[in-house]
């Protein structure tokens, strides 16, 4: 399955509390993603919490967008990516 980098902007900053509520919010995203055949692998968040860079597996860019819409998450840009390992050429 192809892998994508999904860039998102949160003008007011992303706030996921470090408690049960935050955990539930993340699990809800995981559950909704499953409806669209999409898997959230992991995310990187900028220090000001206004940008996230999320790694997703999914069948196509439209599925990534459908899952984002379902989760009410914004999408700035989707890039198809593959892994480059620093020791690959050793």
């Amino acid at each position, binding site marked *: 399955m*192809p892998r994508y980098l999904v860039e998102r*902007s949160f003008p007011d900053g992303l706030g996921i509390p470090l408690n049960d509520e935050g955990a539930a919010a993340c699990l809800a995203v995981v559950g909704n993603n499953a409806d669209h055949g999409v898997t959230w692998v992991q995310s990187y968040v900028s220090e000001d919490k206004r940008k996230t860079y999320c790694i997703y597996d999914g069948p196509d*860019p439209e599925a990534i967008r459908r899952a984002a819409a379902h989760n009410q*998450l*914004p999408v*700035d840009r*989707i*890039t198809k990516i593959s892994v480059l390992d620093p020791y690959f050429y050793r």
Partner: protein
Amino acid sequence: MKLLERDAFLDQLTDLLARAAGGQGRLVLLGGEAGAGKTALVQQLCHARAGGARVLLGACDALTTPRPLGPLVDIALVAGGELQRVLEGGEPRDRLFASFLAEISAGERPCIVVFEDMHWADDATLDLLRYLGRRIGGARALLIVTYRSDEVGARHPLRVALGDLATAAVTRLILPPLSLDAVRSLMKESPLDPVLVHGRTGGNPFFVTELLAAHGPGTPATVRDAILARVARLSAAGQAALEAAAVIGTRIEPWLLLVLAAPAAALDECLATGMLQAAEDVLAFRHELVREAVLETLSPLRRTELHRGALAALRNRPDAVQLAARLAHHAEAAGDNEAVLAYAPAAARQAAALKAHREAVSQYTRALRCAGGMPPAPRAELLEALAYQCYLTDRHDEAVVAWAQALELRRALGDPLREGDILRWLSRPLWYLGRHAEAEASVRSALRVLEPLPPGAELGWAYSDLARLHMTARQSAAAIDWGEQAAALGERLGDTALRSHALNNVGCARLQNGDERGWVQLDRSLELALAGNHEEHAGRAYANLSTRALASLQLDRAARYLDEGLAYAIDHDVQTYYLCMLGSRPYQLLRQGRWSEATDVATLLLARPALSPLYRIEGLVALGRIRARRGDPEVAAVLDEALRLATPIGGVWLATVQAARAEAAWLAGDAARAADEARGAFDEAIEHNDRWLAGELALALWRAGRLNALPPAAAEPYALQIAGQWRAAAAQWQAFGCPYDAAQALVDGDEPALREALATFERLGARAASGMAARRLRALGVRGVPRGPRSATRANVAGLTAREVEIWSLLGEERRNAEIAERLFLSPRTVDHHVSSILTKLGVRSRAEAARCARERGAPAAQPHNRAS
């Protein structure tokens, strides 16, 4: 019995049932792997929570070729009354479906309707599901459909049917496996290790139960081993009875079981140990997995012997004719060719009459497998019937093969009428396969064979199919000529189907020529088809009306034909034209700036197995264009495939793909490559008088400085833009209802125009174009133009589009459609369309409810977030 970890599901179903009782019916898709406890959950609901609701149960067969409409037949037998009368009267399928809907929605009490094991559903049952899914919202009924989610892959017919229901009142539930805690609580009495049991069973409730009941030495490794360990504890006679039961099927008549496996004591043993259960007046396995496991252990010899016994017992029944599907199944498994030939064709005809086409195909195929010694005439008949069913279900490759074989037989028999008829039939699947030259050659051969004979319907159809081929190749004069001959012959013969087909061709060809009188013939074609119940031709009339409306960019008109036509095609199972219209829909939505909807339809279309390349190209082109406009990846993947498919077909199909590739190249910043792509398609578009394509390609060439002269064929807004009249071009696009194209025209304009274009691009999520517009603004010296993408496309509740949210929030302000239309510069019809889509997506029944919901759940205020800021 208390079910573990299923309370939330039960509560949700109870809640849905209460709503259904209040008039808000719903379809529930209940998935889970085999043994996840779907049936147990439904039983619990029906026993403990039904609250006086009426329960109607039906199940699909696990036969290699299931009987058509199994669940409906089960329910009709219990419900009796009008439904049973319609079923036994052999009335048309529409009447049967309507009568079923009346049965489940009319009574005093609300209804729980269960269709079990829908992963085995026949085509007609899947159509029933589509029919009910679109209407259940207004019935006082909860329709629960169970299926094995692990057996329903992306291209499974059930998955395809569920895709068609995407916007209906549907709740999807998947039963998860049990947790370790749940398994532990089940195992209080057991000496086994819960961690081991949970690991081995994956938390599958049925497997856990079987494993705990097996209590032999060691732990069974698979669910099959656990089941067989229990079976092994039965007496030899009990095991034999179970084997016979497994061969009989999911519903086991006690009398038949007694015939096949004599002693009644053995049957009692199976019941006493719970291996079989009594349900109404038939028996059933405790679980289908048990039946499958037992069936697998049978030696081929024993299996053949049991099937032979079942065949002998069932064929003597007075109602044997109605059991044709079952008899054909046992006959083939018993290796009895003669019996297969006696029952499979009858089963095929029954399936075909109910439009269970996939089952008809498989019964005809089964008959042909056993038809080695059959004389050529009946053999040709079987092949022709098979070919027709394949053609109806878009299995064009198979249709070509079967018709070609029938053709040889008819030639050898010296039957020119049938030979000619087959030759012209052959042209149809050939055309859908993109083999257009062969299609024309085939009809021309048909004419040579048929013209010396007295003129009849066969000749008329050959004329009309030739007209159609010319029409689709945009050879309008020839199309009109042949079409008029066909229409005249149809009138003389009083054949309304032929007239409808012929007038359709003439109407389309006239409109291609810019002759507006063509609408009259197209409307007449639809009228004749609807009045005569010629479903295929009605589907075709809708399809071509929408195609012609799209060709003149009358988008609202096209949307109307597509709405009506798609609903008609689903209800009447006109597969080919359903797909044809599904193929047209993305173009309409794309032009209207409704991109998410366009990609949803395209994705649905592309998931179809064995889709005609002509429709596949349309889906791929829409995806490619939208990805390119959004700046999404994998544009080349889809447009390269489209090019590969379109190259051997050529004509406007290839030109359409090249135009999309030109757009993608231009948006990627490569105007020269865009012009290269456009160059080849340009002449083709002009030659075929496709004004929109010619205009688009001219613009691509002009942008690269490679347009020598503006072709007269180019559509006006493109011509205006090339002539530097961007404002007039944008106004025209606006009038056509094409926001993206309007914004593209404004990009050639001054600063206010560019700002307006930028705002539209951001609203649409057109990242590629908004980057271009922003660069131009900066080049004009404008400050404060954002550099990066802004997150304008904040996603919305319940999958509503941005436009729908806007309208939803206006509903919350209690505004009428006319006001909303005026405020958003939309036609009232478009607003109507959006409102009904909002109601469906929110799962509410009235705009008042949607309005309340908007206020309570807080639809974003109707800020004009699509205007410049």
